[in-house]
């Protein structure tokens, strides 16, 4: 699948944003993190900013962005529509929570309800995003039990690493949060390795034989219906060389998991402001690494239409 930057950024940014929002909603709403105006403002701005930028970026993927509003109508069947509905709906409790927790400085009561609802919305939105991919049968690498948990784990991972950044920058770092972020990063790593391992061993039952209905033996494409690349090939015929892919997997692991984990451990050991600096660096590297991971998520996904083209 063609790794369009708009979608790569969208899923990565909203994942991190919803992860952070959920943590703020739960921990802030229930009072585990005390309301503090600048902390709250920056935290909420970061979460909602990532979500907003991601959503905005996603419209760059549309042929007719001015009609994007129509996407809210088909929630009964379409995961993409549900994502739209969930993402927008989440803004309501998130907004209320922001007002209550940041501006009014409250927690508990209705602020807690709003916070928990925002967190639930965030989780739901990430689920819908994951399900968009997980539901696509033509792409075996996506249509697997690894996809939905991956989206949830990565949202939690990037969200917690960002949450840690917030705490650290404001000098209210928590060893607990650091540990959680570290564990989630390791979990993300493990999950990604398991996913790759699964995908690499995938025996796809859909073949050029079933695609053409020509039973037995081999089916080789000898001529395309057109000389130049068409929409299908540009969108779904993306190919990545095995060598290139292996290299990018290593880069993704180093940036998204290995270095952030190491930095988080360093932050665990070092005092402020060094711990804060390490935390910020961990988040930045992880975000970059997740962009690479997401790019690979697309690039390594093989759509059945490529069978018709011998790709």
């Amino acid at each position: 699948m063609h790794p369009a930057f708009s979608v790569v950024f969208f899923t990565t940014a909203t994942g991190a944003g919803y992860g952070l929002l959920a943590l703020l909603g739960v921990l802030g709403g229930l009072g585990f993190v005390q309301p503090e105006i600048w902390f709250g403002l920056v935290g909420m701005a970061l979460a909602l900013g990532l979500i907003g930028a991601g959503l905005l970026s996603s419209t760059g993927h549309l042929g007719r962005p001015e009609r994007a509003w129509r996407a809210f109508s088909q929630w009964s069947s379409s995961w993409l529509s549900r994502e739209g509905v969930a993402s927008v709906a989440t803004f309501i409790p998130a907004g209320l929570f922001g007002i209550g927790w940041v501006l009014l400085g409250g927690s508990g009561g209705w602020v807690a309800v709003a916070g928990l609802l925002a967190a639930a919305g965030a989780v739901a939105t990430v689920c819908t995003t994951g399900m968009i991919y997980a539901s696509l049968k033509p792409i075996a690498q996506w249509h697997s039990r690894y996809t939905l948990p991956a989206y949830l784990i990565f949202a939690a991972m990037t969200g917690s690493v960002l949450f840690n950044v917030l705490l650290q920058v404001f000098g209210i770092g928590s060893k607990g949060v650091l540990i959680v972020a570290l564990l989630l990063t390791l979990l993300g790593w493990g999950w990604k390795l398991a996913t790759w391992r699964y995908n690499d061993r995938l025996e796809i039952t859909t073949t050029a034989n079933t695609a053409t209905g020509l039973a037995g033996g081999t089916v080789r494409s000898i001529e395309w219906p057109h000389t130049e690349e068409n929409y299908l090939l540009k969108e779904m015929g993306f190919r990545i060389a095995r060598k290139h892919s292996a290299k990018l997997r290593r880069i993704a692991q180093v940036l998204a998991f290995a270095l952030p984990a190491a930095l988080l451990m360093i932050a665990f050991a070092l005092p402020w402001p060094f711990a804060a600096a390490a935390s910020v660096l961990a988040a930045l590297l992880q975000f970059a690494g997740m962009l690479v991971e997401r790019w690979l998520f697309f690039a390594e996904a093989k759509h059945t239409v490529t069978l018709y083209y011998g790709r």
Partner: protein
Amino acid sequence: MSSTEPRGANSAPSQRPLADSQAPDEGDGVDTSPSVFDSIAKTTCYMCACRCGIDVHIKDGKVRYINGNKDHPVNRGVICGKGSAGIMQHYSPARLSKPLLRTGPRGTGEFSEIEWGEALTIATERLSAIRRTDPKKLAFFTGRDQSQSLTGWWASRFGTPNFAAHGGFCSVNMAAGGLYTIGGSFWEFGEPDWDNTKYFMLFGVAEDHDSNPIKIGLGKLKARGAKVVSVNPCRTGYNAIADDWIGIRPGTDGLFVLALVHELLKAGRVDLDYLLRYTNAAVLVIQEPGTADDGLFARDADGDPMAWHRVAKAPVKAADPEAKPALTGSCTVNGRCCVPVFQLIADRYLDESYSPDAAAGRCGVDADTIRRIAAELAHVAFEQTIELPVAWTDWAGRRHETIKGRPVSMHAMRGISAHSNGFHTCRAIHLLQVLLGTVDVPGGFRFKPPYPRCAPPGPRPAGKDVKPMAPLEGMPLGFVSGPDDLLVDEAGTPTRIDKAYSWEAPLAAHGLMHSVIRNAWAGDPYPIDTLMMYMSNMAWNSSMNTAETIAMLTDKDASGAYKIPFIIYSDAYYSETVPYADLVLPDTTYLERHDCISLLDRPISHADGPGDAIRHPVVELDRDVRPFQSVLIELGARLGLPGFANEDGSAKYRDYADYIVNHERTPGIGPLAGWRGRDGGSFGKGEANPDQLQRYIDNGGFWHRDFSADQRYYKMGNRAYLDFAVEMGFIAKAEPIVFQLYSEPMQRFRLAARGHGKLQPPKAERARIETYMDPLPFWYAPFEDDTVDLQKYPLHALTQRPMHMYHSWGSQNAWLRQITSQNRLFVHQKTAAGLDLADDDWVWIESINGRVKGQIKLVDGVNPDTVWTWNAIGKRRGSWGLKDDAAESNRGFLLNHIIGDQTAADANGKRYSNSDPVTGQAAWFDVRVRIVKCARQEAGFTEPQFERFRQPPNVQPSPDVLRFGAAFRTKREAAE
């Protein structure tokens, strides 16, 4: 469904409209009944040479869509990939828009626009001077012309013998091989009995020739489950759907076919009764070596061939229906030793050199496969016979209660023709058909009227005596029956610029357009003044040895003048040849013109009856261009050519439409056969009818006459048919047409080579004539096989025309070129493995003539010793309205660059045209090559490259986005 019978080819129950085609009440707002046309114009397609009937739907003054005419005898409602893309041809950005006069050096594309008046004056002055001095200094060659009866007649009236169309580099072997054997041939001359055949063999058909009729026919065979056997080095297109694909080595089909003949003869599986009735199998051949009549037929005092009456033991007229002729043995007639033709056939083909075992290695086909195919042919022909319950009467008046058929049929085309042994291979296929008794019988191969004709049909070519200001005594192209008909002087020097009908190409029924540029450049046999050409891309894909051909077009003599002094070219599009013209006469598209598809030319008959058709303008002209035929008629009038100008010098015909209606070639016979007579009440012969074109238009653009049931088969000897053919003027007398298994005209050339007769070949030509003018078909290796080092050039290289393209025309078509804008070289997997080549590699394809670079694609479906590519995809930058980055000129390639236009020098140092020695047919498919992986930095682009052409003045750049059809919708929705 309506109660009427479904029309057209695609009318099986599973192809009809819904029983209730009322739109359901879906409520989704879809307009299921938009208005899609304001008018329908029925005319004839010209996206290739098949001449299908088309319904052009006009909406808002533009062509909305084109579909097949269901009533049309050629395509019966279907339409091919090219036909549906006609819109894009008609609106092509490569269309010329005004006459052009060269301003820069030839070949650069620098022109200025001029008015028609000036263009016609320039042409008239030039041609007039030629006609006053030496008319043969005009060489007029017309490419893929469908108006040869006009263009040939024009040349004849002008007085130049130097006329031909593209047949010489297309398929003259197929035409001549058939016409000299059975008085007809494949494609325009005949077709398989698709409705009845049970076993169909297809030889060397390169995706086309013809298009829709073969496809419709194959569809019928498939629907009935009849067996299809294809003999072709490539397993694409029609060959892909064969039940049995025989991936033969190119150029060996003749050997394969004669091995089948060997098997059939050996087993006695031939139709003796058929041979006796319809062929010259029983005719006595004089066997007196060294004498002047050796090998000629023994004739009686009337000059009629004789046979040996096996009961009376005496000679009889071979045509005597009461005779009981012998087919074997020898006899003495008039003191001459004679044997029947069939004895010679048996002697030759029973020889072990034609056995399957002898053929297998050369053909690359197992001996067992050859034996199996022979057995299948025999089984179907003799054990699965069919009988139609229709009574008919033969030429001798014998009534037959049924029509008996042997349901084996064959079709062959360019893969057979385009070799230097193609003529004999074509004859071999006809020999095979005739031995099986399957020509013009139910289930067999059937003639299309006006065929069959006498074999050869005559008349002889005109041009022996070329005089200033005098027309030729006949048409420039014809059929020779012996050396006396050749167009050579006493020293043997050819009269024609293309050396057709000379010792180099005696049976050149279609001329040798592919030799004209070289000969004119070399002044061999003489220099010319003006080369006038029409719609043939001779500076590119229609020539062999392209680079040298281009150089010859621009070569100058010591005085700085072009060696070919003046070139007039007419085409509708900016092809690679236009920039080489001095004067360009822009033609119209096929939707803007009148044309006639005439019985005098290449008609659209099918086996069940004759037909002809017209084109007429269905959209308005929007450019300053004129149909070439009307321009030619005007030039004829301006030159005062007899037949084109009246006594007073005024024009005889207003334009081509006027000519089509009013011209009479012989009294009562004109270009169109339908609705003749003042009131349109007759057909075939009759006075000119001023309303004739309208009658055609009213009838869907064509005329067709269905035979009665008793006229449809055995036309070579069917009285009802022969009488009709005489009435129509197809043949002179209602006499049977005798298949010439042994060709006496060819033997006459041999005798000349042996020193007999008044016209004899030059010494150096004698061995060649002796060898190749064999009166019985034989097989010899294609010439290039014998002259190149096969260790060095082990592969055969072929081209095929993609079904969605017509030569170079397709690449200017926005839709068709998307399908193929780069051609690959297809290489067998095993062959590639041996050469360490992988899919997509770039290779040099090298022949003794040069090298060209392209990208390969590995396949299994090809003879392992053969590589092939799609024809005419490679284009020169600056032509056809294509942008500079188009794949055609960057990645596509033209195999023509490496096909020699001449043979290697013989012992005398002489180089012949790279052609069949009998007919002069271009031997495109003889080329031998090797492929070599190119260096890393050489990959990704084709070579050789040629200088980019400048664009003609006032040409709009081709669009970056095409939204054809958007306007129909906008208008439709606005109206709602």
